[in-house]
């Protein structure tokens, strides 16, 4: 059994088992959701939401409240502030988002770095998958279940909207509502994912798996499934890397996800079967 020991080792430790479960749950749902994030160009919006929720996280940590609560409130405030600021055409949505996010990150850091705050800022910024609590795992499981169902139910309207928003409108689909539902799902995923990977690294869960599979999936449905698989596997690989190399767990998971994206984006030749099917 020596050969399998490197694989089984983390499973024998309670902490690593929980970390694995957390990143597999988050990796699968965020990996699937990421397809729509990339296709609908929401990567910058997702980054902004995950950075902008920092004050919420810090306040929850200072008050001893559940971090999820702080993250959810932080996401809501950040989204509302960005939506208001982005309405000014003189500034443009990109710079307006930058103004809001920079201010919020500064506020979060100010709260966390004042001398009488507990030293938890790095954990909030970069995550600590090894420290997940039962409630974090439950939140991740609920997100994976409810998010998966929502993605399944919304699949056809999302496809029709992304393919041709005008044509979808003529079919009775309301593209505005569909995109709003997608943003809501992204916000929920960000709020839960920061428990595992922190405000700065959770974006990797949403973007990397989708980029890894984007060139290879012939249909949106397969891209979602493949993204979920890649997200779960790369997340688990990151935990193993951290276990064996002794590296920071959150950063290792993010690095494994980024490596998966880089691998998937290499100019592999398309498999012969895909070619003949389309001929």
């Amino acid at each position: 059994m020596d050969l399998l020991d490197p694989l089984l080792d983390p499973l024998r430790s309670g902490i690593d088992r929980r970390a694995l479960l957390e990143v597999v749950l988050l990796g699968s749902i965020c990996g699937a959701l990421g397809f729509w994030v990339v296709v609908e160009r929401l990567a910058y919006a997702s980054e902004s939401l995950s950075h902008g929720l920092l004050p919420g996280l810090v306040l929850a940590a200072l008050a001893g409240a559940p971090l999820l609560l702080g993250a959810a409130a932080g996401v809501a405030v950040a989204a509302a502030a960005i939506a208001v600021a982005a309405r000014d055409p003189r500034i443009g949505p990109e710079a307006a988002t930058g103004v809001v996010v920079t201010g919020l990150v500064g506020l979060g850091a100010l709260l966390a770095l004042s001398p009488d705050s507990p030293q938890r800022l790095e954990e909030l910024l970069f995550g600590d998958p090894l420290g997940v609590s039962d409630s974090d795992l439950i939140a991740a499981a609920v997100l994976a279940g409810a998010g998966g169902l929502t993605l399944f139910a919304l699949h056809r309207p999302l496809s029709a909207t992304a393919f041709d928003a005008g044509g979808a409108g003529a079919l009775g689909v309301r593209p505005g509502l569909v995109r709003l539902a997608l943003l809501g799902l992204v916000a929920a995923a960000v709020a839960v994912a920061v428990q595992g990977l922190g405000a700065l690294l959770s974006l990797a869960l949403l973007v990397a798996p989708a980029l890894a599979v984007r060139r290879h999936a012939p249909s949106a449905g397969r891209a979602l499934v493949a993204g979920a698989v890649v997200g779960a596997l790369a997340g688990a690989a990151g935990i193993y890397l951290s276990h064996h190399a002794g590296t920071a767990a959150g950063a290792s998971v993010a690095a494994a996800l980024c490596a998966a994206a880089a691998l998937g984006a290499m100019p592999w030749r398309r498999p012969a079967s895909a070619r003949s099917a389309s001929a």
Partner: protein
Amino acid sequence: MSAPRVEVDDLAVGYGGAPALTGVSFTAAAGESVCVLGPNGGGKTTLFRALLGELRPLTGTLSVAARPAYLAQTERTRLDFPVNALDVALMGALAGGPWWRPPSRAAREAAEGALERVGLAGRAGVAFGELSGGERRRALLARALVQDSPVLLLDEPLAGVDPASADLLDSVFRSLRDEGRTLLVSTHDVASAARFDAALCLNGRQVAFGAPAEALTRATLEATYGHELIVLRESGAERMITIQHHHEH
């Protein structure tokens, strides 16, 4: 005579500010095809958007028997989105069935039938972005066919399409009319208007409506197109064509 499928009375619509189109009144019954003529910016697409319910009438009324199927003039489809021709046709089923469930077997069969009808049966599995321009137009028509609406709005369906695709599309349009559907087709091609049951001329307002032979006089065409109209004299007979400008977006 059955009740009209499309009934428009003294309609004015616009995009905020001054109305883009005023004084439109016409009807179209089952099995009728109406040719909508007018210059660029004359209000053809605006009329279609009003019939689709995307623009609210400023004045007047309009009623359409069912949500119309729509073939848009300018393609705003994402060519890099991973769908094949069959997936595109299947999207038409969104208009009828529940959106949260995977498409039914009946919808699949309808989509396959629609692809066959537009001559794409052998190309069902090809990525949309890899189809030719004419094939893409036909796949989008298949989507409209799957929607199975009694009213179809076709916005310059033959503009910029290869001749083979144009012939095929044209024959599908004729068979749709023979099935008793109502077709509104916008076009720049004045010569083809004679083949329709009625012609509607728009230039910011309604210039004329009626059977092509009566409605399409030289005076109405001049009022419709202004300086875009060119009159050719060929061996004594007059032939009128228009200068075409295609929208590039």
